[in-house]
């Protein structure tokens, strides 16, 4: 879309950056004031880690293993809720339509939700790392701490795409339930709570269909505790899932903008 020069309204880079910051701030405030969001997002991964990684760690490697998988468990809710529930709500309240009449760049809207997922995800990962390094006595090389955090946080991308697909299709009333129905079984079946190798074999085979499994395997690779499948496989599945979710989301939006 070309914009007329001389209309006096061509925004500069500083103005655009400000929109991105303000939109991110609004998004973070919105979710931070929603206890139904913040409690499961911030507390559950840390609480579960204390139970299964610190108090009931049955083998010496359990705290290290669960550090990676609860990290993945921790970044999924902010990714799914910001887009899934937030978008469905704004779509239904008309807030999204109103924003679309303003000069707000669509990029700022998407950026704000990804940034919120990253910030909340980073808070959970930091909390887990502190618990792991202190209470659970996890010892990793410095590069492993950074690589683990990097892999886990990069995982917001496919789950934001999944959230976008959910938010584009489901009604606001149903969004929280749908997100939980997707997220909790997927977390369990992907081996985020207990390692996949303790599953019966048919469940082990089922695990490979979930993006969370592949993200967890990438994270576990950093600490050499993965199932041994190639990195390329995990990246390919995560990439394919992201593209598929975005396609599903775009059909949802097309359906919405049609009468």
């Amino acid at each position, binding site marked *: 879309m070309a914009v*007329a020069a001389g209309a006096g309204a061509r925004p500069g880079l500083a103005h655009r950056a*400000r929109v991105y910051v303000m*939109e991110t701030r*609004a998004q973070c405030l*919105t979710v931070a004031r929603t206890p139904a969001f913040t409690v499961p997002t911030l507390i559950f991964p840390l609480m579960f880690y204390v139970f299964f990684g610190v108090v009931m760690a049955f083998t010496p490697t359990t705290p290290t293993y669960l550090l990676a998988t609860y990290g993945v468990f921790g970044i999924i809710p902010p990714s799914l809720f910001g887009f899934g529930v937030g978008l469905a709500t704004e779509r239904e309240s008309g807030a999204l339509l109103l924003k679309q009449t303003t000069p707000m760049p669509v990029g700022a809207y998407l950026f704000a939700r990804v940034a919120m997922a990253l910030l909340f995800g980073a808070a959970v990962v930091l909390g887990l790392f502190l618990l792991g390094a202190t209470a659970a006595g996890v010892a990793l090389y410095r590069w492993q701490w950074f690589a683990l955090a990097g892999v886990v946080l990069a995982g917001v991308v496919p789950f934001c795409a999944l959230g976008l697909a959910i938010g584009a299709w489901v009604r606001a009333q149903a969004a929280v339930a749908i997100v939980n129905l997707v997220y909790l079984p997927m977390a369990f079946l992907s081996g985020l709570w207990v390692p996949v190798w303790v599953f019966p074999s048919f469940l082990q085979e089922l695990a490979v269909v979930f993006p969370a499994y592949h993200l967890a395997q990438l994270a576990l690779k950093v600490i050499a505790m993965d199932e041994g499948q190639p990195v390329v496989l995990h990246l390919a599945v995560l990439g394919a899932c992201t593209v598929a979710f975005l396609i599903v989301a775009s059909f949802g939006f097309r359906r919405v903008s049609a009468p």
Partner: protein
Amino acid sequence: MTVASGAAGQNACGECVAELAGVHHRYGDVVALDGMDLGVRAGEVLAVLGPNGAGKTTAIALLLGSLPVQRGEVRVFGCEPGAAAVRFRRGAMLQASGVPNTLTVSEHLELFSSYYPAPLPVSQLLAVAGLEDVASRRFARLSGGQKQRVMFALALAGDPELVFLDEPTTGLDVEARRSLWREIRAMKAAGRTAVLTTHYLEEADALADRIAVVHRGRVVAEGTPAQIKSRAADRRILCVTRVDLDEVAVLPGVARVERNGRHLEILAARPEDVLRILLARDPDLHDLQVTGVGLEDAFLTLIRGDGRQEEA
């Protein structure tokens, strides 16, 4: 989509800042707009008046660029309605629209202000919308009237030349409606152009310089509030007569006839003309009463009259 530099502000219809020309729009089999022509002149408040389903919201959505144009031409400031250059110069209040419940009034206004290069200061927005006392209250805790005033303030955030207000007072109580009217009048006094949709003739009369009455996707009457009111049948005749109902219905100036017990109830713009004929045909006519009707009834006869012409 390309916008020629310098084209903004000068347009085909001269003084029009926004325009629908021969616009047709359908949702599947349902015709929403059926050849609508509508021009908004700089500095005026134009009320688009019509019942639910007349096509008002579709017209606004096309002027905002929220819907693709199917047939006809839609221009705003001489540009495509959704063009970025247009977005900076207009604001909108959508029908039954909200914003997230968890943010405060100030936070919403600060956010929307950030979208525009030269926004109105938040303090000024709070003042013009009468929201100073609730600036730090979350949207969820506002009354219906306060919520609508927030939506109004958001429409003004970018200091727009042109403001679209889609049924701004629907669902508000009388007091909240009057309060929003005051703010819309102040906005008009500040020199902004506005398009307002409503299904209350009273509201159009109170706020607009010009009224376009829409019915079944077309403009069926257009003029100043005084002109529109004079065209609306605003007198009710009640009488007992042996003149047949069908015979009365075709008399000039009669908008509607109904049998009401022994009485005939006739709505007409000029009751004298109708009575002259009736008395000539029925010297025994009695129990005669002529009263004014409310603006809403008058408005209904205006669009019903149009419906009958279509069928004829």
